[in-house]
């Protein structure tokens, strides 16, 4: 007992010293350079470099270590009785990197930019329900919604909704001025971006003096750089690569379940998938446990065709073992006693798609579903194949339950990739949004997911578990999802 105490005291001391000490050392990591020369520091632009914006800008509300909304630049919030008007108290004494202080006008400006249809931000869909943002006083903001929305704080946790100084829109893409723990010293998306510690960060001075975020587009090169100790962190390690790093004392690994999913979309407006029984059969034919093992090397969590992430409070608890007999029966009932032939379109855009297709092909053949894999070019995949071909691979990054269900499954959704039109499902979603009682709301979201399991055309076999590898000199990296990491905490030896 004494020993434990002593240890924890020591730990505390180490912890305290690491926080108290002046920022020191350089932390290096790579980013994927997804948008080349269109890369930008504007958090709401398509070309945003998330690996940088996450460190330099803050949100009103961030996900805590438990994933629930936590105060960031907003200290507290409350809603009116029907959840249409939300009031946020802002944190006082926070300054931007340029010295100006953070106030209500900045919040109005930052959210206004996202909501402006002309700006064309992809982040707009997360907060489209916002009707008006007003300042009650310099430290209080009132947000009025066009529809009741009980989980508004969840939406404001979106990783793109970062607070910028008022009027900075034209320059933010290169200056990156925010309130985060690090400041931009030099932005060079294709080369090395240099960040330095922001001594005035509201949560305290960061542990690392300098960060270098380096653009390396080739995944193998990023891994080689980590293996050679040239970078300190790599977030895109695959389940198979994990094996290679896990034996070594030079590296630390974190496995973090995410809500990012990969799967196939069977268009519900095209025969034979207009028949709910066929849709269910093609999904029942999959052995999801085996898919996780085969495709991800075990690095994933089985999903039962729900886009809600495993740790989300609204995730429905469905089980979906492979059921070849039932799949066959459903196909026979639908008029296909001899099975069906389908063309599944994949591209190497997502490296795991072809493997997923192959593994699914082998599994589904047992139920008389003969899969023909059609490999199409990566270029133009989203324009020419996805939402065009009858069966195509898809991938999405996690989003709050309500947003995922609305953006991809609602009859009128812009990205309704399976052309899913179901009035009953739409009703469930809109009543859930209006429901202020958490348990009742949860019941509605769960019901919506169960409804999907019976009817959807989207096959979601799993969500991916992210493997983050760091060199052993890195300490205090929160073992949480990307957008909840507290960057000021980390230190390097």
């Amino acid at each position, binding site marked *: 007992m004494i020993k434990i105490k002593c240890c924890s005291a020591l730990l505390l001391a180490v912890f305290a010293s690491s926080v108290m000490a002046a920022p020191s050392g350089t932390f290096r990591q790579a980013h994927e350079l997804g948008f080349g*020369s269109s890369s930008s520091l504007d958090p709401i632009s398509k070309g945003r470099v998330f690996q940088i914006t996450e460190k330099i800008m803050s949100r009103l509300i961030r996900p805590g270590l438990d994933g629930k909304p936590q105060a960031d630049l907003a200290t507290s919030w409350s809603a009116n009785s029907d959840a249409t008007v939300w009031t946020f108290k802002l944190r006082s004494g926070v300054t931007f990197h340029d010295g100006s202080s953070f106030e209500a006008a900045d919040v109005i400006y930052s959210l206004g930019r996202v909501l402006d*249809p002309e700006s064309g931000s992809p982040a707009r869909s997360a907060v489209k329900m916002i009707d008006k943002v007003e300042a009650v006083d310099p430290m209080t903001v009132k947000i009025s919604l066009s529809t009741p929305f009980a989980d508004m704080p969840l939406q404001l946790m979106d990783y793109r909704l970062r607070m910028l100084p008022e009027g900075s829109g034209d320059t933010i893409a290169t200056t990156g001025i925010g309130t985060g723990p690090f400041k931009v010293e030099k932005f*060079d998306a294709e*080369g090395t971006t240099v960040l330095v510690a922001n001594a005035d960060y509201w949560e305290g001075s960061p542990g690392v003096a300098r960060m270098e975020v380096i653009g390396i587009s080739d995944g193998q090169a990023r891994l*080689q750089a980590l*293996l050679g*100790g*040239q970078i300190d962190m790599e977030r895109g390690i695959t389940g198979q690569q994990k094996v290679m790093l896990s034996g070594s004392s030079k590296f630390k690994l974190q496995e973090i379940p995410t809500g990012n999913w990969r799967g196939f979309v069977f268009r519900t407006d095209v025969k034979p998938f207009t028949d709910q029984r066929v849709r269910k059969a093609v999904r029942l034919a999959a052995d999801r446990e085996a898919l996780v093992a085969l495709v991800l090397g075990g690095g994933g969590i089985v999903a039962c065709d729900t886009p809600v992430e495993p740790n989300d409070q609204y995730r429905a608890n469905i089980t979906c073992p492979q059921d070849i007999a039932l799949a066959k029966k459903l196909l026979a009932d639908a008029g296909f006693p001899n099975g069906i032939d389908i063309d599944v379109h994949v591209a190497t855009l997502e490296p795991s798609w072809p493997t997923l297709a192959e593994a699914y092909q082998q599994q589904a053949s047992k139920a008389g579903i003969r899969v023909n894999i059609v490999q199409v070019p990566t270029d*133009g995949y989203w324009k*020419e194949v996805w939402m065009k071909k009858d069966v195509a691979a898809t991938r999405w990054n996690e989003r709050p339950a309500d947003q995922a269900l609305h953006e991809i499954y609602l009859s009128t959704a812009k990205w309704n990739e399976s052309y899913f039109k179901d009035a009953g499902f739409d009703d469930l979603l809109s009543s859930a949004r209006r429901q202020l009682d958490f348990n009742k709301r949860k019941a509605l979201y769960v019901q919506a997911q169960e409804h999907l399991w019976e009817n959807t055309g989207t096959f979601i076999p799993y969500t991916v578990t992210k493997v983050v590898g760091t060199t052993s000199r890195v300490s205090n990296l929160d073992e949480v999802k990307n957008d909840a990491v507290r960057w000021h905490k980390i230190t390097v030896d």
Partner: protein
Amino acid sequence: MLSMLLRRLSLGFITVALVSIIIFTGVEFLPGDACTAFLEREAQGKLLENCRRDLDLNRPAIDRYLDWASSAMVGDLGVSVNGQQSIAELVGNRMNNSLLLAFCALLVGVPLAIFLGVITALWRDKPIDLVFSTAAIFAMTIPEFVSSTVLILVFSAWLGWLPGIVLTSANASAAEFFPEIILPVIVVAMVMTAHILRMVRTSVIDVLASDYVRMATLKGVPYWQIVFQHVLPNALLPAINVVALTIAWLLGGVVVIEVVFNYPGLGRMMIDSISDRDLPVVQAIALILATVYVSVNLTADLLTMIANPRLRTLHMRK
């Protein structure tokens, strides 16, 4: 001589102009444009419209080409997609890096290749020739991605002597690329040395077998005097041509090496800008590479001509 030079220069200009037309047409035909490539799933409706308007993609292709060509003539290559940097500067940085890689490789490779080429030719079919000739074939034929990968594994991952991946920014100074540049230089130099070595070897053997060398031998001129006075000067001429072609290859053709080592050269920028449909950048790179190709070839021909008096009169040889 001067009229020939002018003629070659104007022909070179026509070649470069043709390149720009070919590339413009080629990239125009690609499915999608800079906007659909950037916006991916969001490439619809208003967003797409705005993007196309911002990037000036709505005008007819010919108009855009003429606009581009007339500004390119006066050295204005436009600004990058994000509207922040001049393309001349962006491409110029990459170009410098490619030149740096090429220069280092040539510095190591050319003397080595000439030395080994002469040795293998003089001791033709002897063990030393077999060893280096075989090694040259290996160096030429083993794909660059294989040798690069092996070098990274051995020198970076296992031994830890050299950094495996180049992390230096594109606009860094030459000195900053050391020591990261060493492994890519080794790979490039290996391939290049092998090609030049074989070339030198063949041509030394040719000259050794020529009539005037035989004549000199019969006259009793000492062997080494023949080698240094007659064989080498004549044999090294054709090597100039290979070196010239190699420079052109080094600038644009080492994409694989650049990708594996993350080296910020022209080649990688080229494939990235194709997948981004960044037409102005593709155009600028094609223009530069074509100019380099034309001018190194011209220089090589001129050098050959200066070095070999017999060719001066035969300028219509090719």
